[in-house]
């Protein structure tokens, strides 16, 4: 492989990885936008989504098979189920806490994360579940560049979901309300916006996107387990912060940047792959120290 081919291959692989990060990062950023909460349970919603997608696929595989069609339907089912779960979590766990100290609500989010993880652990006995599909390994070569059909479908799906979200937020009434709520909740209330409903919708969408990513990751990589949300949750969180938390475009950008950083980070000369995560986190810290609002975030004055 030449240097150039290798570069292109890293670029493609980084984009695939980045799409997952971006989809998960969107949930973090949207929730942060409306209720200023770092939803630590978000990575676990991704995990729950993967299991929901797996369950959905086993239900419908008799009718539509386990190709991309079946996976799409399973993905929609998972998005619906986990979206509702997200709303329930918000109602039960976060809503009563909105007046509490900020750290308390953060710990509540951690507790929700532990509940989801351990529920999945208890149900699976901690075992990996093989996510069997009919997706082959097929792909094609462009020169030395290898692209699989799965990768293309995956990136396209992620892109469609993100475009749909962008349209929703910028063009619809709820989307505009969402942006308004993220700027000033009290003012929205006075203007007759149903803030609770807006928050619920936000959780539904954010959780649904995580579920979409979870199902696709399960199908693409082929195995799921109860702890799969932790690492990606951490990285998506990083992506959201790099892009500027609260900014939807920022989350997409942050996800892609992080995916590329990791993809290329493995290849830094003289530094082994064992330092890859040190590299990722160092970049994160540098971004925050020198550009604390992230790439696309707006600066805001904060008081604890």
């Amino acid at each position, binding site marked *: 492989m030449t240097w150039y081919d290798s570069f292109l291959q890293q670029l493609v692989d980084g984009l695939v990885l980045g799409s997952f990060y971006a989809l998960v990062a969107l949930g973090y950023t949207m929730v942060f936008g409306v209720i200023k909460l770092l939803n630590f349970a978000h990575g676990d919603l991704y995990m729950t989504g993967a299991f929901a997608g797996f369950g959905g696929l086993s239900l419908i595989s008799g009718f539509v098979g386990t190709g991309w069609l079946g996976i799409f339907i399973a993905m929609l089912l998972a998005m619906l189920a986990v979206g509702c779960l997200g709303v329930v979590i918000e109602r039960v766990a976060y809503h009563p806490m909105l007046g*509490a100290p900020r*750290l308390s609500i953060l*710990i509540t989010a951690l507790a929700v994360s532990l509940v989801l993880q351990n529920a999945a652990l208890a149900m699976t006995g901690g075992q990996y579940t093989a996510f069997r599909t009919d997706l082959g390994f097929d792909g094609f070569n462009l020169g030395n560049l290898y692209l699989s059909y799965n990768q293309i479908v995956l990136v396209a799906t992620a892109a469609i979901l993100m475009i749909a979200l962008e349209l929703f937020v910028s063009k619809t009434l709820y989307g505009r309300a969402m942006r308004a709520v993220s700027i000033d909740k009290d003012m929205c209330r006075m203007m007759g916006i149903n803030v609770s409903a807006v928050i619920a919708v936000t959780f539904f969408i954010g959780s649904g996107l995580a579920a979409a990513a979870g199902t696709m990751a399960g199908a693409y990589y082929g195995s799921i387990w109860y702890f799969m949300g932790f690492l990606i949750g951490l990285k998506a969180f990083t992506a959201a912060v790099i892009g500027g938390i609260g900014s939807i475009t920022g989350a997409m950008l942050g996800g892609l940047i992080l995916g590329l950083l990791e993809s290329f980070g493995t290849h830094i000369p003289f530094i082994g792959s064992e330092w890859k995560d*040190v590299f990722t986190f160092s970049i*994160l810290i540098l971004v*925050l120290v020198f550009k604390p609002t992230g790439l696309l975030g707006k600066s805001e004055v904060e008081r604890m």
Partner: protein
Amino acid sequence: MAKSEPKPTPVSHVDEPELHKHDSHETDVHEPGPRNLFQRLYAAFESPGRRRALHVAILAILIVTPWISSQYTTVILTNALLYVVLCLGLNIVVGYAGLLDLGYAAFFAVGAYTVSILTQQFGVNFWAAIPFSLMAAALAGVIIGGPTLRLRSDYLAIVTLGFGEIVRFTARNLEITGGASGLSHIPEPSLFGWHIDSSIDFYYVFVVLAVLAYIASQRLFDSRLGRAWLYVRHDEDAAEAMGINRVATKLTAYVIGAIFGAIGGIFFSVNLGAISPESFSFQQSVLILLAVVLGGMGKIPGVILGAFIVVLGPELLRDFGTLRLLIFAVLLLLIMLFRPSGIWPEKRS
């Protein structure tokens, strides 16, 4: 209980005449009309006289416990006391100064690794190695705190998380830290001819550490610095206007918290005799933070209670097997929902 005390007034200790006498001296300590069971329970311990009695009682219980219980109990309690030290340290950062820290295990790791490397690989005496270990932790506190303290709290959380992970990965990747296997054969210390070796020995060491951490926390809370943290936590700008150096005040909290963490790490490593990067994971940081917030940020007895809950909780539920962590997590969620400021919250704020 509701029947015997129809009116929720502070003067209801008819069945405890001796304590009642204390009450009459210190009625100003009580807030008028404690409202629920928790508050009445806590109010019962707020008066200095009772507090002293409670201190003596707790110390007595701590001292006799290993002689009347199993080795398992001793080991678990040692672990709980370690968490008391760590939680009191993190409480200074989170509870006193109001800085969110998701990478506290990093300081714990720095303390543990520095002392282990010095004693095991360079043959330095354990007690001589401690100052170096503390200095390393303080330095780590400055390095982490310095550039980040101007950040807003959520970002501070993620930066500290990042630092915590960097420390763990570094420990895993370096030769001198023993890689993923970590270091074993860390020599046990001796003190004036007392070879600190058995689990009971270490238990008492941790009792002493926890008591010292408790006293230090209390002193800091009442000190000038403690008040400076309070002001900074409540209103940075006003604090600055009053002549408090904001950054220096926050940094001190970091450094002191780091030293507490390092002390925990130092004795953790000699107690276990072996350390590995897994002991200093993100989950470890979360567990410590959990204990602090669960117990009640800023409130020393609350934090201690939190430490005991996170250690003893999963152990007491051990017979539930796989379900025990789920039960623990649900209980935790319920506690947070019904006591959002922690089980034993601080009143001063």
